[in-house]
């Protein structure tokens, strides 16, 4: 299995940005296991940072074993347990009974032939294939819901005061609903997992150029040099994988 999965090369980075007091994003980069993840935490004080860290560290040590389908099942189960931990199992204080402790998640599991992307929230997965960029994940945000389910015009949806509010996240609801996308991989496929801090601060042209560079390391460096040259108001995270 290790020989099969060593066909992946990857690089990852996360940065606090220039404005936020702390980094609430966490990343996981395990090319030897074929597992990568970005989590963007939310909540007051350090709750967001703890939530995203809990997700990453839970998956980092998860015994995966088996084939890709079994691995996906294990990761899903683990995310459901974290959802419960951050949701109704959490101790709350009387002055903050509704304190939020949650996180987005976008994860990719891959072997030589196939890859599976699972996500909740607005962290994204992109695929660069044959000189074209595809967004594989669809944001779980109010804006996306207005556009796709209520056929609201995208410009009008973006003006909604709560356009960026998440409709799904780990720890946010009683039941966690993960979206899952499975696809076959081709040699040269390059994938990007990132938090909104990254894709909000660079254009799709920059994303495409980065993913076409010679290595995942070069792609990550290019993305961060562009993202950090701007105002960088949010935390920034990216993981780039190439088959």
């Amino acid at each position, binding site marked *: 299995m290790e020989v099969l999965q060593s066909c992946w090369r990857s690089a990852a980075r996360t940065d606090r940005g220039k404005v936020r007091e702390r980094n609430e994003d966490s990343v996981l980069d395990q090319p030897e296991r074929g597992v990568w993840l970005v989590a963007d935490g939310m909540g007051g004080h*350090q709750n967001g940072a703890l939530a995203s860290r809990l997700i990453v*560290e839970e998956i*980092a040590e998860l015994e995966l074993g088996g084939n890709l389908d079994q691995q996906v099942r294990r990761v899903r189960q683990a995310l*459901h347990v974290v959802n419960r931990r*951050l949701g*109704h199992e959490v101790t709350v*204080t*009387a002055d903050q009974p509704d304190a939020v402790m949650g996180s987005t998640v976008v994860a990719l599991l891959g072997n030589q032939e196939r890859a599976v992307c699972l996500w909740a929230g607005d962290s994204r997965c992109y695929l660069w294939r044959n000189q074209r960029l595809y967004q594989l994940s669809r944001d779980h945000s109010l804006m996306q819901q207005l556009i796709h389910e209520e056929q609201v015009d995208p410009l009008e949806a973006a003006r909604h005061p709560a356009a960026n509010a998440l409709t799904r996240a780990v720890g946010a609801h009683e039941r966690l609903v993960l979206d899952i996308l499975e696809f076959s991989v081709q040699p040269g496929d390059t994938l990007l997992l990132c938090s909104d801090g990254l894709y909000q601060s660079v254009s799709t042209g920059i994303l495409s150029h980065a993913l076409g560079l010679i290595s995942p390391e070069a792609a990550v460096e290019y993305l961060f040099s562009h993202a950090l040259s701007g105002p960088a108001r949010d935390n920034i995270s990216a993981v780039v994988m190439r088959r």
Partner: protein
Amino acid sequence: MDSAVDTPASPAGTQVAGKPAKPTLPAVRQGGELPTVLSNRYRIERLLGVGGMGAVYRARDLLREQYGDPDPYVALKTLNEEFAEYPDANALLYSEFALTSRLRHSNVIRFYAFNVDRVSQRAFMTMEMLKGPTLDQLISERTEGLNWHELQQIAIPLLEALHASHSVGVLHGDIKPSNVILTADGLRLFDYGLGQPVQGLLPGLPRLSRKRIAAWTPRYAALELLEGGPLTEAADLYAVAVILYELSSGHHPYSRLTAKQAKCMDQGGTLNKPENLPSNCWPALKAALAFDEEQRNTTVAQLLACFSFKPTSLLQRLFGHAG
């Protein structure tokens, strides 16, 4: 910022007139990220759990590792930043340590030491490192509920741990499925972060003031806690009864509502015995699940006696002996 703890006697770091000054521990610490190594000894490796007030990490004890200990891991608890900013936060964590280090029971987590990292001034305590599924994992996997034999294997050690705590005057204050773990060598009850000594025990120690910081886990908190009342044995009894009901039936007794919501909807009247539960356990469990404290007319010891019951077989009943 207000003090978060009641200090009936002299708080750490305060000189009392007429007495010599005690060595002082810095009482105020600045918020900030947790250092990677605490007290030059404990290397933080990963986050194990988070709560409203504290976080627990797995740490490698570098000293034990240096002496060749093959398993040099400890669980390490610190207060969350928002609580670490309270003036006597360190004393608050110490009171948890002082309270819980009185406990000696094979089904209660073992506590090792209380420390303050000199550089960051962050207080922390170390405990045995526990591995295994917690009851919330078990409940989410076994939605049909546990059979009677399986339930007994959890209920008996859990009730014994709670009974042992109460016997030495220690109230838990936050019993819930994720605070109970099934390790290879048995069940452990942990996280006494909201614990309280019963009146009169440990009189000199600072204790969590429920007037200033009231905290609970909504689905497991007794009605009186939600209404601002003091923590008593009866509140721990309610919480443990919710867990036992959940384990037996596979679902929360009050449709995952808080006691306050469930009472408003009069859910107490429609509570049914879980199918897998023997009839002789139901009156005590039902009483322990009463919303009003004065209606909860049973005890942890009585519940333990019920759950320790071994049903006799038909042959035993026919021939009148235990075989």
